[in-house]
């Protein structure tokens, strides 16, 4: 019998669930290799300047210490030819050059690494390294440097204008407001790091925490100028990343240099406070939105400006102002994006990068406008729904956002929403309802999968994909089960190894669309071969018309004309049937505007005198095409909603600008939601196939899960209290 949960659209449990809950899943830091030694970083204690002298003597003579690596003695890195920070692979490279010279670009920058035979000894010895600096004055504050913003080189973030500039100013009803997103730090449970082992002068193996083994491989090969095939990267399990592992960080290169220096494998696991300083963050962003409408609600114009925190040594950009260009039908739109170089580490995408920040501004402003117009915020959005993408002037590949509004409104009980803000109480608490829209590009990249059908009837599929948590392996097994008509327990999907065929990084919600397509095509090719090898009876029929069920292929009309895959292999004397298929996006991206959409609804309680906000109910609706696995997709949406609650109410990494140092760099002081903060979250899917994006019709949903959640909460807080909070997080002090 076919188990529907094992097929596309089912609710299959994770294939690696047991490994994860029993601890059998092995994360990079858990690998032990013979002769392993431990690295601990020494961070700079100034924010900008140069190292005048470094005293490593005490550390070197501490028990168990093998070496103290720094710019003074680190092995030369072939790729570090100039003194400029390296800008390899468009910001995916190591950026800052590890231990290359005595320059300090930000506080906490690694200036040395102690290698010792135990982690504890290395930690202690690291505390003995002292540096003398030549300090320069530094700038870490965005607010006081807004005038230093520069237009980024990134093509997609040049100034954009459609129609007249700042036309919103001429509208009969208009809103103009500033919105502030603080710095957020990814803080996945698993700390960052790497284990590096040289196997020869130009051959290396690493165990990494990465969102793309092939990306890590490429960067290491480029940095050390060794053949790519000589770099093996293992990363089967990742304990959360949220974007922070989309590049190779300088401390990873430093560890590889250390392994070279001591001629032994070296493991580095950074500390929680280093997670704030050297592994990226969601950038602090000041935004302004101007939006104007006619009395009937029709938008006249939208303007959106963003000033974004950036480092001083490379350019980072994200699509903060992107959605403003296409999410609504407005004849006049202009957007401006500026990066503000500061003396801090470079940011890196954090779940819903850019769009999550941008949505807070845009979707708050639309809510503000709805009150000014005295119009329901959903009606206002419906009124401005664009039948096609106004930015590219292309039809949508699919866009069911209006249906998503309806589904969510019904579920949350939108009709109970007080029309007047600050007008309704429940158990002594102000109650409010809010909603907001999210969107993210439905991306697809090229990917390759290898499928091996074995004589025992099992199917092994391999691709160098990553799984930072969404359940990639599970979705891939379902896609294969669907195409092959096989039970899921006969199928194994392996990922996270550079030895496997190419897969892109796991970022931008593109894994199911990209790797899933490759798995789909590999299985289709397998089917074709099976039919060709099956003998005359089936060969005459068209491959597509045949039925593939229970590991057999048969004629649609004649049930008796059926043959098992194993039988086909046996008859042909084949130990195995193998195909490798590359799948690429076609021209569809030029013909259609492809986006996923989400709508978030929340109900909040706000305490009238203490300002405490409690989210009482959340409804997350996704228009993400076909939902391959309803269970893991729901979990993703819930996780995103939880992240959104953190973004709205809690998360903020604070720098003391006098010193350029973070002041709340631990998990006691940097808050993320705990169970008690999380209400019932209902997840609903439009679940309509996108006819163009890929064979499954699946669009990504990892990012849209969070995009729009923060403004939904801010809007609900306004509805409850009449207070518009335009600076996240919405903590009690802002509401009393």
């Amino acid at each position, binding site marked *: 019998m076919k188990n529907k949960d094992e097929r596309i659209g089912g609710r299959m449990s994770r294939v690696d669930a047991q490994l994860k809950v029993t601890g059998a899943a092995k994360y990079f830091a858990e690998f032990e290799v013979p002769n392993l030694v431990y690295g601990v970083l020494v961070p700079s*204690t100034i924010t900008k300047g140069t190292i005048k002298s470094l005293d490593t003597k005490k550390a070197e003579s501490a*028990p168990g210490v093998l070496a103290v690596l720094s710019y003074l003695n680190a092995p030369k890195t072939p790729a570090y030819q100039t003194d400029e920070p390296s800008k390899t692979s468009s910001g995916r490279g190591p950026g800052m050059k590890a231990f290359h010279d005595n320059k300090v670009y930000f506080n906490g920058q690694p200036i040395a690494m102690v290698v010792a035979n135990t982690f*504890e000894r290395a*930690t*202690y010895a690291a*505390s003995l390294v002292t540096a003398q600096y030549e300090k320069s004055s530094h700038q870490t504050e965005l607010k006081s440097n807004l005038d230093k913003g520069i237009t980024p080189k990134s093509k997609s973030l040049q100034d954009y204008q459609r129609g007249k500039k700042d036309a919103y100013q001429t509208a009969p009803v208009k809103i103009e407001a500033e919105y502030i997103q603080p710095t957020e730090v990814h803080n996945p449970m698993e700390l960052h790091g790497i284990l590096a082992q040289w196997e020869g002068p130009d051959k290396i193996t690493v165990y990494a925490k990465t969102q793309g083994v092939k990306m890590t491989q490429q960067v290491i090969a480029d940095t050390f100028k060794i053949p790519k095939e000589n770099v093996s990267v293992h990363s089967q399990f990742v304990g959360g990343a949220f974007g922070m592992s989309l590049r190779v960080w300088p401390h990873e290169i430093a560890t590889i240099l250390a392994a070279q220096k001591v001629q032994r494998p070296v493991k580095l696991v950074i500390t929680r406070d280093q997670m704030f300083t050297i592994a990226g963050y969601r950038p602090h962003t000041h935004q302004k939105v101007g939006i104007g409408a006619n009395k009937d609600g029709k938008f006249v114009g939208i303007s959106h400006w963003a000033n974004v925190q950036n480092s001083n040594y490379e350019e980072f950009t994200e699509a903060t102002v992107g959605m403003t260009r296409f999410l609504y039908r407005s004849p006049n739109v202009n957007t401006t994006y500026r990066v503000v170089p500061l003396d801090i580490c470079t940011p890196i995408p954090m779940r819903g990068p850019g769009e999550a920040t941008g949505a807070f501004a845009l979707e708050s402003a639309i809510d503000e406008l709805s009150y000014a117009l005295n119009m329901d915020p959903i009606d206002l959005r419906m009124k401005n729904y664009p039948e096609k993408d106004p930015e590219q002037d292309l039809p949508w590949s699919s866009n069911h956002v209006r249906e998503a509004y309806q589904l969510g409104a019904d579920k949350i009980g939108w009709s109970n929403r007080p029309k007047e803000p600050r007008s309704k*109480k429940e*158990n*002594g608490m102000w109650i409010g309802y809010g909603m907001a829209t999210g969107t993210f590009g439905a991306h697809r990249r090229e990917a390759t999968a290898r499928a091996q059908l074995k004589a025992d009837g099992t199917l092994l599929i391999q691709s160098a994909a990553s799984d930072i948590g969404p359940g990639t392996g599970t979705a891939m097994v379902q896609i294969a089960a669907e195409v092959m008509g096989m039970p899921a327990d006969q199928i194994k999907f392996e990922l996270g190894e550079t030895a496997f065929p190419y897969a892109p990084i796991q970022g931008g919600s593109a894994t199911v669309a990209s790797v899933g397509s490759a798995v789909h095509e590999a299985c289709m090719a397998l089917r074709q071969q099976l039919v060709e090898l099956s003998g005359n009876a089936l060969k005459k029929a068209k491959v597509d018309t045949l039925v593939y069920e229970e590991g057999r292929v048969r004629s649609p009309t004649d049930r008796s004309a059926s043959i098992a895959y194993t039988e086909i292999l046996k008859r042909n004397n084949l130990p195995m049937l193998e195909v490798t298929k590359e799948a690429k996006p076609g021209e569809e991206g030029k013909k259609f505007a492809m986006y996923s959409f989400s709508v978030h609804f929340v109900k909040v309680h706000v*305490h*009238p*005198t*203490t*300002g*405490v906000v*409690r989210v009482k109910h959340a409804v997350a609706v996704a228009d993400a095409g076909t939902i391959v696995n309803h269970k893991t997709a729901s979990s993703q949406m819930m996780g995103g909603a939880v992240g959104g609650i953190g973004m709205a*109410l*809690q998360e903020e990494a*604070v720098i*003391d600008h*006098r*010193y350029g*140092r973070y*002041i*709340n*760099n*631990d998990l*006691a*002081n940097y*808050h993320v*939601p*705990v*169970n*008690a*903060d999380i209400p019932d979250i209902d997840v609903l899917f439009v679940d309509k196939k996108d006819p163009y994006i890929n064979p499954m019709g699946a669009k990504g949903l990892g990012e849209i899960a969070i995009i729009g959640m923060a403004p939904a909460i801010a809007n609900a807080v306004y509805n409850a209290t009449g207070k518009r909070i335009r600076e996240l997080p919405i*903590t*009690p*002090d802002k509401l*009393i």
Partner: protein
Amino acid sequence: MKAFQYVRANTAKSALEALAKDPSAQFIAGGTNLVDLMKRGVTAPDKLIDISRLPLNKIEKVANGVRIGAMSLNSQVADDKLILEKWPLLAQALNAGASAQLRNKATVGGNMLQRTRCGYFYDTEMPCNKRQPGTGCGAKEGYNRMHAIFGTSEHCIAVHPSDMCVALVALDAAVVVQGPKGERTIPFTEFHRLPGDRPEKDNTLGKDELIVAVTLPDSPYTQHAHYLKVRDRASYAFALVSVAAALELEGKTIKSARLAMGGVAHKPWRLQEVEKALVGKTVSEATFQQAAQQAMAGARAFEYNAFKLKLAPNTIVEALKMAAGLTA
């Protein structure tokens, strides 16, 4: 962290002897605060004397009250039948602190001696008079959102982070300590101190002393007691402001009151004058508003914590209303 020696004491006497032998040694109880401080390099003892197995973990009914052994776990006290029945305020405060895992490890003595959560205190690269006297106070002109509004000095504006201690100070607790010269008892109000010009000293415990117990007198505050903690998330966060409020009522009239605040000072902030003023008054929002105004006399805020000037009185009113059973 620096390598250290570890010894385990089996009796209070042997613990004190071990300490006398090695003045740079420190006691370790649950270790939930001390180990973090060692990891961050804030403190680096040469020796740890493990006191967690001392036979000091009983919660005993004594004449006119209860004696809680210093080694009792936070969760043990919070779940104790006698405490729940007679001193529910204490159980509420304990349950408002930290997380279930931490409460299962943290001891009563350790909770009292936990150090401030000031970020400058934790970062050895920052100035901090409490960690390193004479280096200055990083928080005073820095990020001081969590800091004190009462009893600050130019040398330190930190708060004591404990919830338990706010209830204990309200309930007239006393601390029983043992030193080389024997036992002495310190009223809870005098146990923690204000920073003054010695911010490195959190309390009046001698360097050579061990906390052995906390005692609570019998109290009339079994019915009308409420611990209200306002924080940035629903659980597992330190107080922005917390209030322990207890009332003894006769009908609607207040016979006696106990009131203390957390998150506002270098010590749990008992409000004895306000308590006195409440006596004889009728419970009402207006009475409580008045009490809250009185409580705020002398408050002074810094750049990021001005909100406490409003949040603190609001929380007092709310806590008193809850204690009195006045629901909105």
